[in-house]
């Protein structure tokens, strides 16, 4: 029975394969490129949902995304009750110098939203009120903050769930924006 059997190595090879898959996943998680909590948006490449929303500044007027066609646009879902939204406020302020940003106040009270903007700055060209979260649902929002990049054609190009960090802005958002221009 001392004959060399190649089948002996099959479990070993299978095990090494599993170790390699686990190692790659772990490396991705540790380096931040893989986040199992980040759901991919199914709306990428689709036109931005057109849910009429009252403006924060003026109840009588509606937020119309169509009016911003022809330029790249950021749409940011935020709320005064959301801590990461405070954290990303400076980043939005900085970004507002390069791109128009629409804010959508997600399930917030108007007076709280106003206070939040006074305190943390207002980087938005317009702010819609999504009081009951139905617009958020149409966009596939599952938490605030969430940020969408809209192409001049009105197509959604990119979505980020969670606060915009320096890393996300430079490696993802600005890269996508460059691609577009």
């Amino acid at each position, binding site marked *: 029975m001392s004959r060399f059997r190649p089948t002996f190595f099959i479990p070993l090879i299978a095990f090494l394969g599993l170790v390699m898959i686990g190692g790659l996943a772990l490396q991705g998680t540790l380096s931040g490129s893989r986040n199992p909590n980040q*759901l991919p948006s199914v709306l990428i490449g689709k036109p931005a949902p057109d849910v009429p929303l009252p403006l924060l500044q003026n109840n009588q007027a509606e937020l119309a995304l169509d009016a911003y066609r022809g330029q790249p646009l950021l749409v940011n879902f935020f709320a005064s009750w959301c801590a990461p939204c405070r954290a990303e406020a400076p980043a939005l302020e900085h970004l507002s110098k390069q791109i128009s940003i629409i804010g959508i106040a997600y399930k917030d009270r108007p007076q709280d939203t106003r206070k939040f903007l006074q305190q943390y700055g207002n980087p938005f060209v317009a702010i819609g009120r999504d009081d009951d*979260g*139905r617009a958020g*649902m149409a966009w596939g929002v599952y938490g605030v903050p969430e940020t969408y990049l809209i192409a001049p054609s009105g197509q959604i190009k990119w979505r980020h769930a969670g606060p915009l960090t320096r890393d996300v802005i430079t490696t993802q958002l600005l890269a996508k924006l460059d691609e577009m221009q």
Partner: protein
Amino acid sequence: MIRSGLYIFLIGVFVMGSAGLIPPLISTANAITAEEMLADPLLENRARNLSQKLRCLVCQNQSIDDSDADLAKDLRREVRAQLVQGKTDEAILSDLRAKYGDFVLLAPPLAKNTMGLWLAPIGFLLLGIAITLGVRRRASATAPSPISQAERAQIEALKQQHKTARTCDQP
């Protein structure tokens, strides 16, 4: 051989069955509140049924029927609003799929990209059966053959020899 195959099959059925049966027995908590419910018991029943199929995207391993998260509540309300509008169950599920993707369904749909997921358990079961049968076949092939008449005689002779040797040892 046939019996061992049957055992393997039954164990497989038991494992798969308990995987499907136990979770519903454990999760008895419901997050739904009385004011969310619809007056029509038929519609409410459909709403509950749909809620159990939909994933809460915040907690990710709970259905919106189980979850207390705000988004789960919103989704329950959305499901009920669409039911009241007269939409079919399929239409409601596909509407939410269009917004949140396949992930919103707790049971992944059988599609091209989920084929591996659905067929892998069957594949592993077949692989396990094949390996077990292979091992058993090899074991029976290398089993020692019964001793022949000549060998038996040889053993008797050796025994006899041993016995005489022992008696000679005694003083």
